[in-house]
């Protein structure tokens, strides 16, 4: 009967699958190729100066649809590297228990501070294990592979002018400007010489200053005060 023939056919199909290699990837011994844009857990990064990139603007907290981010903005104080006043975040808590992995926080960050990673979050045994504190987030920067997606990359990709005629013309112009830039670099080389000359002068000035300083120190002693006062007018 038809049942037997079709049963035999189904069974032949199953047997053919037995002879194929299984498609199982035995995680965590083997890892899957996820691609560079994978969004799995989060990291906070440092900027190009080596300082925390997060300025505590709270954009990520405002945009999160699940309200899992809590940022405590710190006082605006001068940066330790550039000296300019900037914002800081005193505390940053991301509750992975409720995160929906939508990448909106990454999209809106003005300083590319929060990024997602290509490595899975380490599983835990309690709810607290899944709450990413600031330490864990900064640790993830070095302990995990960061994903491709940053705010600036995403915004560039989503730019309405990208790939349009306008954009292409602008790109050509930029490309056409390259030889012009090279020429501009040559005249820039001239200022380099004066710069070098300035630099050449500067060491002298620098040398002169220690001379002044050195001259100033012995000036403390009464004996050298007369020499110092004589040395100062000479340096001038």
């Amino acid at each position, binding site marked *: *009967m038809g*049942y037997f023939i079709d*049963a035999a056919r*189904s*069974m032949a*199909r*199953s*047997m053919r*699958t*037995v002879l*194929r290699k*299984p*498609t*199982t990837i*035995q995680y965590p011994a083997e890892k899957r190729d996820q691609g560079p844009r994978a969004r799995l857990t989060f990291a906070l990064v440092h900027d190009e100066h080596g300082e925390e990139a997060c300025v505590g603007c709270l954009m990520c907290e405002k945009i999160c649809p699940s309200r899992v981010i809590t940022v405590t903005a710190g006082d605006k104080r001068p940066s330790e590297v550039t000296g300019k006043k900037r914002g800081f975040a005193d505390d940053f808590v991301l509750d992975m228990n409720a995160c929906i992995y939508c990448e909106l926080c990454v999209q809106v960050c003005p300083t590319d501070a929060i990024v997602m990673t290509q490595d899975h979050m380490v599983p835990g045994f309690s709810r607290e294990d899944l709450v990413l504190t600031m330490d864990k987030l900064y640790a993830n920067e070095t302990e995990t592979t960061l994903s491709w997606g940053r705010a600036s990359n995403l915004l560039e990709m989503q730019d309405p002018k990208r790939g349009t005629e306008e954009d292409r013309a602008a790109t050509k112009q930029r490309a056409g400007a390259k030889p012009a830039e090279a020429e501009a670099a040559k005249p820039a080389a001239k200022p380099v010489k004066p710069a070098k000359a300035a630099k050449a002068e500067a060491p002298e000035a620098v040398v002169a200053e220690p001379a002044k300083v050195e001259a100033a120190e012995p000036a403390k002693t009464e004996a050298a005060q007369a020499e110092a006062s004589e040395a100062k007018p000479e340096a001038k």
Partner: protein
Amino acid sequence: MNAIHPIVLHGLIYGGAIATVLLTLTAWGIWFERKFAGRMQSRLGPTLVGWVGLLQPLADAAKLLQKEDLIPDQADRTLYLASPPLTVFFTLATVAVIPVSVDVAVANLPIGVLWILALGGLMVFPVWTAGWASANKYALLGGMRAVAQGISYEIPMVLSALVPVIFAGSMDVNEIVTWQAEHHWLVLGPGLFAFVIFFVSSLAEANRIPFDIPEAESELVAGVTTEYSGMRFGLFYMAEYLHTLVASAVASALFLGGWNGLFGLADGIHWMLAKTLALFFMITWVRWSLVRFRSDQLMRLCWIYLVPMSLALVMVSALWVYYEPMLGGH
């Protein structure tokens, strides 16, 4: 020891040994089924517990043992508690008459085939009482379906089991195997159709896909075993595999020549094991490839197709046996 009758002693020792072997085979049959099913579905089966997952059955048993033993409040306690062990008991009792090697059986009953078929019929009872006693509508439905299926498919099973009896002229299973050793395996000849019908009926009796309506997970949660937890559920589970193995053993003895070897190689228990396991492999293969029948289609298959066919087969084999010597023998 002298007070015990030799037959009883023989039964105890051989019975104990065969039951132990059979239960071990069941446990590792579960492992084999899971690995094979995995491969059919393009995945690995159990791999972590022991080398290639060989200790998985022990892990399963340990898991089931440590579960909470729930007995529903409104359940019929006696029947509820008695059903799981009874299924295992009746299944194991069937093996008593099957010769595992030349003249080696727990009990060489002259009515061996009747014993097997009678116990096959009895096996429906604990399944049904489990469904009734669970005080659960899903279980009740499963039990009813099991009864309908079980008693219907007994008829083709009995009739197709008669074919070896007619050919060998005896209901003693050992005699049947001996006849096959002297002549030819029954499956290679007129017994082929009888073998197929017997195989299909055994699948139905064992509630295996494509006839697993009584335990259809997608429809009845877990069918008859819905309210059972822990080792009681484990007993049902084990009974199902045990029944499959026993049915394979019976089919090998009746149709495939039992302990008789091929190509003149030595007879013995290894052949019996090989054939039983080969049939178990086939049953597993069928299970993981096909979808299930609906109850009425199942009944239709039995009553409209299998019963007339097996009746016809009985008549044909009787005529064959009668007229064969006159036609110059085979």
